[in-house]
């Protein structure tokens, strides 16, 4: 039974990786189709000056292209192509998430515990959190434009997990026999999903705001390419901030839960173990990001760079400390 489940899990994860790959290809095509196509210039939201508008209850339901995104010209084939590939990519992503979720759940069922015991399991669960965070954001804020970076990230990490990190199911070491494992790792995984999406959005923000600056400097009005279909850099920045603002308190909680657990398992709540130290560094870096956003001269691009520094400390903690570090958090199984 355990063997069947664990094989099922491996199949589902491999399947999810392949579907992420196809989804990524669809999003690549989406971006590529926009290469020759000029977007309607993105202008500041025009004042609405209406005499009488429809009552709020009958307001047209906002559909895929967000109000920030220029309305695609339905007459053009190219426009239709872009939208079609975007939708295909998104549908495939949903399919991949289904497989991915099934893979994580069956792994847990096969192991008879939460599937958070080694690096392979952390990577599969963490990536799931990233893609789920993206799906929630698509539903709430219509961020389908994050499709390419998110699917590429999922493909990269799941691929590495399957090829390099895979370990068969094995029992947990006694230090992990605690319900705090579920609380601490779940909080950390959701927060890391948020940080990842936040970092991807920050990168897009940096790219887009640079393009906007250059276009303004050269009086270049040719708005061709997918870049000009992204929301304004301001809107991207807003999404990035929202995700970070969601992830930061959660990260604080994850560190706290870790400290409480450490008190039970190791007899001290904080001991400057390398993992703890880097969790603290990540916390400080994101605290700096939040401060930067409120500091004159640091808003915008500089703050986005600070967020990326925060993300790199997080990545170092996950990759560097797990694989090369010593200390009490040596659960990578590598």
């Amino acid at each position, binding site marked *: 039974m355990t063997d069947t489940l664990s094989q099922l899990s491996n199949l589902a994860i491999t399947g999810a990786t392949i579907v992420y790959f196809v989804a990524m290809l669809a999003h690549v095509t989406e971006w590529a189709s926009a290469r020759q196509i000029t977007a309607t210039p993105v202008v500041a939201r025009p004042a609405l000056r209406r005499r009488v508008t429809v009552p709020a209850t009958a307001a047209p339901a906002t559909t895929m292209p967000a109000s920030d995104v220029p309305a695609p010209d339905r007459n053009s084939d190219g426009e239709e192509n872009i939208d079609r590939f975007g939708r295909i990519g998104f549908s495939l992503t949903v399919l991949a998430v289904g497989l991915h979720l099934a893979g994580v759940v069956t792994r847990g069922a096969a192991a008879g515990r939460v599937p958070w015991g080694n690096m392979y399991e952390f990577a599969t669960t963490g990536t799931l959190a990233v893609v789920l965070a993206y799906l929630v954001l698509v539903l709430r804020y219509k961020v389908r434009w994050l499709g390419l970076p998110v699917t590429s990230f999922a493909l990269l990490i799941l691929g590495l997990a399957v090829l390099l990190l895979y370990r068969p199911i094995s029992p947990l070491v006694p230090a992990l026999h605690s319900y705090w494992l579920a609380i601490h790792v779940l909080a950390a995984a959701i927060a890391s999903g948020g940080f990842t999406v936040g970092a991807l959005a920050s990168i897009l923000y940096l790219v887009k705001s640079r393009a906007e600056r250059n276009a303004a400097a050269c009086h270049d009005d040719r708005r061709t390419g997918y870049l000009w279909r992204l929301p304004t850099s301001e809107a991207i920045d807003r999404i990035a901030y929202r995700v970070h603002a969601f992830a930061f308190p959660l990260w604080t909680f994850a560190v706290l839960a870790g400290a409480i657990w450490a008190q039970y398992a190791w*007899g001290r709540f904080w001991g400057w173990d390398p993992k703890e130290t880097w969790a603290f560094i990540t916390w400080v870096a994101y605290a700096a990001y939040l401060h930067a956003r409120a500091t004159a001269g640091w808003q915008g691009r500089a703050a986005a760079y600070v967020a990326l520094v925060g993300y790199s400390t997080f990545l170092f903690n996950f990759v560097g400390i797990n694989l090369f570090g010593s200390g009490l958090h040596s659960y990578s199984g590598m």
Partner: protein
Amino acid sequence: MRTALVLLFLLALAAIPGSLIPQQKVDASAVAAFRSAHPSLAPWFDRLGMFSVYTSPWFSAVYLLLMVSLIGCFIPRLRLYAKATRARPPKAPRNLARFSSFDSYVTDATPGDVSERARSLLSAQRRRVDVYEDGSGGVVVAAEKGYLREAGNLVFHFAVLVVLVGLAITSLYGFKGGVAVVQGESFSNTLIQYDDFSPGGRFRSSQLAPFSFKVDTFSAAYKPTEPGRGTPLHFDAGLTVRDQPGATPYRYDLRVNHPLQVDGTSVFLVGHGYAPVITVRDGKGNIAYSGPVVFLPLDGTFTSYGVVKAPDAQPTQLGLEGYFFPTGAVDQTNHPVSIFPGLGNPVISFVAYHGNLGLDSGVPQSVYVLDKKHLKTYDRANGRPKVLLLKVGDSARLKDGSVRFDGVRPWVKLQISHSPGKLVPLSGVLLAIAGLLGSLFIRPRRTWVRATPGAGGTLVEIAVLDRASGGNPDDHVDQVSSTLQAGEDSA
């Protein structure tokens, strides 16, 4: 803000070396290994406090400066906030159309009607609302909400101080100590019984709770099959505890994640190992040493290292230095190795020394290290020291005596600590999270609705200003605008 930002960066940077360079308090043996591997670098690291980064003056300086800057920010902002809680929404700027979140329409309703509806709409949204006439016959409704954001901000920063004060209290008045206890032996909570003990600055040893316990049993189980062969499955120590001398003893099942609590002091199971029971007889046939010797595990298969010292042996002092293999086997190069952490085929391999153990020199010695300055090995014909391999029950003859491997007993590494007031930093962090949520998700927002009479009807202008990023003020403009217009239709 800029100061805080710079100090946060410094704090993050300052924390890095401690995660890369071994730390005295985290892993003392790694520090010792580093010292012997880098003899010229180590003195410099000592001078810079690199082996105890988190208590070094420069690290302390960074976070103390951060605290000073935090307090320096906190007090004036608290004063400002006290004023702001009583403030009225600011008057509308002359030109509302310059706001990027703006809408306007013309209606037949009178300015009074429009403003009344705007007032009730915005009040119902729990905004602070003022209505006033702007002098040109128009009526302005000014509304503001989100005052709690700054409260959340202040709570968060105050909570950071609570956490730090709490941490200071627990470390000043608490203690942390470690001891290895062999199965069958007892521990009573007095200073002399600890292997290592680090008290806080305000801790007095008279405050040690007078409990004692005996380690009756210890069992460890390891996964016997691949995959993950040898992964520990559980560790379990059975204790008989007395809360104080003369109290009724009770049994306690001590496990990882299941510490023993006595009078605010906690006993944690943090490690374990094997103690081979060894009997050393000297050249005259007398027992010079007999009993379990704690060997320190070196790896996941519990290959362990230890020494035996027999200072009373005659005619010469004897010492043993060697390795213990719980499941011994021989590798391709004919060296003994351990292939499993459980006790399958216990073997010790050691080299015997004779001469002076150096115990009388007055310099304190570690029980885990043999001072070989005045010791000699028993050599084989080829001049190499003789390595003796013993299984349980085996004896080996030396020139000046004999060694017998009687058996193996497990030992447990216990951490005993007392952290008074640890609820203070805990509640501090919880308070910080609550404040953080407030400061991140409450968005102060100002809304103005101006109704000005004109020839073609009443011009209604709506503008919204967000005073924190992350919100979408356009949605709010649309909502106010459409609600006002919808109300008109139904009127």
